[in-house]
């Protein structure tokens, strides 16, 4: 971190009004994660209930994670990518990712992401790439198409099911 940025950081902390007028404007994104249970009734209606920490769930419970981000800084956040994990003991629900103004990517290892992850499958004709089973996703990522303006919010949601 340069001295100029360190100084700006101190200004931001101590004198927000002054910082706003300073030449160095920067984005500051705050990300939050919420979890809820989703029960689909026989008539297809969805019932979503907030799930507080350590409320018991059981096998088959559908959990919806909502990742929200707000730029609390003074400049737009560019190339914003939000990620959420598919926790151990759960499997991603195919097609459950929802987010306006962005596109979804998935990862089988938590490092590399693709809109359509592939896996190598051995066949009699050799190794062939095939689309991965969504149950194998370990991290989902949502990439916002446009910059997130200062003092605005965005986000996406996805679902997993307890195995």
């Amino acid at each position, binding site marked *: 971190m340069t001295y100029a940025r360190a100084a700006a950081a101190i200004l931001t902390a101590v004198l927000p009004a002054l910082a706003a007028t300073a030449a160095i*404007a*920067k*984005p500051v*994104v*705050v*990300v*939050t*994660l*919420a*979890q809820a249970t989703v029960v689909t009734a026989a008539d297809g209606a969805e019932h979503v209930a907030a*799930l507080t*920490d*350590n*409320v*018991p*769930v*059981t*096998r*088959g419970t559908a*959990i919806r*994670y909502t*990742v929200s*981000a707000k730029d609390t800084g003074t*400049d*737009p*956040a*560019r*190339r*914003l*990518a*939000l*990620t*959420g*994990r598919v*926790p*151990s*003991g*759960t*499997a991603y629900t195919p097609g459950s990712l929802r987010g306006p103004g962005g596109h979804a990517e998935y990862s089988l290892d938590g490092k590399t992401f693709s809109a359509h992850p592939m896996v190598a499958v051995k066949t009699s004709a050799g190794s062939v790439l095939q689309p991965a089973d969504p*149950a194998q996703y370990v991290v989902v990522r949502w990439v916002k198409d446009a910059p*997130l303006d200062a003092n605005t919010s965005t986000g996406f949601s996805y679902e997993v099911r*307890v*195995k």
Partner: protein
Amino acid sequence: MMTRFHLTPRLLVAAFITTCATLGGAFAASAATAPGTVISNTSSAVYSDANSNSYTTNSATVSVTVQNAPSMVVTAGTGQTVAPGQTITDTFSIQNTGNASGNVALGADATIAGTQYRERDAVVLYGYDRQRDDPVHHVGESQHRTCFAGKRRRRQQLDFNRRYVCAFVERNVG
């Protein structure tokens, strides 16, 4: 499939003969998440400023605990009728998709129209028990049948990751 009948001569006129059999092997599903497992998740944001400096920030962690609970999926037999003096078999497929063993009560919809149930015939058979806390047992009612696995007198609960078949053999005693 293992099917057993436990009958005494007196019970040959019984309205019910109930068996409960296990289809061997686990059904094709992934292993259940163990009870007590904490499922936690943290999200993150990665973004850049106008000078292409990159930033990463994380959310607080949220978590839930997996509960010890059976989850019974019962596929009921079709509605049937039986003439007086005749016997009919009503079969239920039961699958415990939960992460703990348990038993399952088959409700009033398990009753086959036309069969009769007599209180004095209500003995515990293999795979069958009447609910003792049910205060009313009228002739013609055969509800609250509970399906257990295991041998007679060594009643066991239904394992998870297994599929069972409960066959209620009912006779219309006219």
